[in-house]
């Protein structure tokens, strides 16, 4: 079902006409109300009235996560805080998170786009949505929650964790839709198998999985193990949260971008140049309708390409391919974004710890595990086991507090972590996804 037939099937010229009108308005608004945007535009010598066509978008400067960090927490908001009814946050590159805000109308827009998203994945009124995305500062839980309510489905706001209980509730409440990270879906499937739950008692029909990259192989595995359709969803809090783009159940290839609210561009991550349609590069988004936290040409660091061919589902929006990588060193561990710089930040705050560390990411069963190897220098060495173990435990605790995801700290001998010339190889990702 198409939730908003009027907008989701517009001819290309009409989409572009709406985009231009909304782009002009948002650029005018950020120039007038958000000092960092005005400063950047002045430096680039571009004024709001210079935006005469969609091609003029590329004259505007990019926005990066660094810009958000420099203006932490509310410096990029385009409305006074009295008009902000909610904030969410995601990982920053250091100890501070990236904060985003929503006006009442933004929450309404988001619910509309999430209703479209769910409908696109084949969810409808009468479905029971088992929402295992985390509720809290993370946008996943509440994003799905509001969208499912808007659609008229029944929401179970179960959030993450306690998998056996999740399965019991899924069975007893007759959940038909599962929403969580793809790795958690696999974990649920494994626990179902281990605990000998009769899968014929489960009514799950479709799952909408996102917040971390996953491959076609993983899709096959989830679909086979759970006996469902597995749909990919994309979003990030800086743009809105979930509901930026989603696959349709008809095609399951390419995620439809809600282009009446977001303009996608693909750029060369090195030069910043806009690439022609169909080429692979870094995804950049401009929000068109957001009030509290509009972003202009935000560099997502996600690598993908745009698909401009029409889709069998009838939606006319361009699609983006499944994200295949990052143009920076961000890791996604159990759905949580982690930057190596955050880990370094924690290590540097522990006295005596040297900046020689390595991060090893692997997958045990369906779950990501992260190990941080720290070299034992003379400053932190002790002849007593309990002192060294206590140190490792303390670092683990601080990591957990800063990263919101746990990791194991392993103490290693000095000089065992490879010293590379130039950029150190900090991360070894052994996951096969």
């Amino acid at each position: 079902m198409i939730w908003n037939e009027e907008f989701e099937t517009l001819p290309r010229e009409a989409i572009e006409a709406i985009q231009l009108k909304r782009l002009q308005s948002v650029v005018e608004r950020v120039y007038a109300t958000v000092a960092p945007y005005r400063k950047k535009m002045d430096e680039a010598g571009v004024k709001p009235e210079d935006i005469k066509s969609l091609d003029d978008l590329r004259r505007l400067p990019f926005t990066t996560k660094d810009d958000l960090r420099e203006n932490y927490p509310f410096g990029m908001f385009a409305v006074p805080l009295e008009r902000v009814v909610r904030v969410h946050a995601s990982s920053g590159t250091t100890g501070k998170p990236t904060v985003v805000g929503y006006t009442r109308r933004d929450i309404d827009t988001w619910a509309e786009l999430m209703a479209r998203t769910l409908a696109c994945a084949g969810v409808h009124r009468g479905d029971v949505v088992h929402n295992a995305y985390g509720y809290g500062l993370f946008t996943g839980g509440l994003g799905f929650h509001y969208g499912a309510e808007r659609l008229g489905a029944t929401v179970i706001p179960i959030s993450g964790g306690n998998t056996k209980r999740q399965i019991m509730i899924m069975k007893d409440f007759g959940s038909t839709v599962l929403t969580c990270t793809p790795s958690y879906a696999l974990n649920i499937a494994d626990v179902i198998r281990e605990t000998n739950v009769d899968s014929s008692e489960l009514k799950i029909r479709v799952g909408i999985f996102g917040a971390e990259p996953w491959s076609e192989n993983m899709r096959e595995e989830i679909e086979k193990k759970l006996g469902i359709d597995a749909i990919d969803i994309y979003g990030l809090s800086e743009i809105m949260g979930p509901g930026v783009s989603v696959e349709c159940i008809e095609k399951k290839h390419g995620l439809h971008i809600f282009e009446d609210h977001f303009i996608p561009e693909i750029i060369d991550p090195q030069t910043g140049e806009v690439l022609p349609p169909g080429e692979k590069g870094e995804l950049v988004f401009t929000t068109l309708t957001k009030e509290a936290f509009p972003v202009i040409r935000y560099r997502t660091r996600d690598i993908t390409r745009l698909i401009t061919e029409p889709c069998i589902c009838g939606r006319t929006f361009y699609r983006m391919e499944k994200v295949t990588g990052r143009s920076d060193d961000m890791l996604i561990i159990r759905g949580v974004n982690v930057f190596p710089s955050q880990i370094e930040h924690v290590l540097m705050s522990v006295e005596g710890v040297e900046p020689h560390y390595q991060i090893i990411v692997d997958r045990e069963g369906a779950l990501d595990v992260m190990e941080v190897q720290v070299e034992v220098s003379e400053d932190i060495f002790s002849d007593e086991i309990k002192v060294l173990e206590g140190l490792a435990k303390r670092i683990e605790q601080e990591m957990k507090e800063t990263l919101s995801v746990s990791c194991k700290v392993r103490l290693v001998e000095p000089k065992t972590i490879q010293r590379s010339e130039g950029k150190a190889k900090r991360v070894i990702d052994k996951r096969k996804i």
Partner: protein
Amino acid sequence: MKVEQISIFLENKSGRLAEVTRILSQAGINIRALSLADTSDFGILRLIVNDTEKAKAVLKENGFTVGKTEVVAIEVPDRPGGLAGILEALEGKDINVEYMYAFVQSSGENAIIIFRFDELEKAIAALQEAGVRILKGEEVYAL
């Protein structure tokens, strides 16, 4: 009254201990006493050698993290109750034994126990008061 002990950080993987003994043997250093404490990830090797400074230097040169600690060596009669008598001398004095290890001399009459205390000076005083024989550093290095 104090004995110098070196400690070495070892990752829990094969060949690391052999690497230490190889380096020490090449430097002509003799190991007098040894203990290895380990966890699932790493170990700490504690050694008393005939030349502490040299041992420390060659191990550091070879990339090991090396620490130096002061411990106490005590001679204990090699018979039932020998150790119990010594621990009694420390009782009620608020002194903790962080770890200890023992070895028996070739003469076989007395055992030597290496103690690592949290309060070194206090422990020495208590042991002396109880008439326990504490070995001098030189005595241990030259055993």
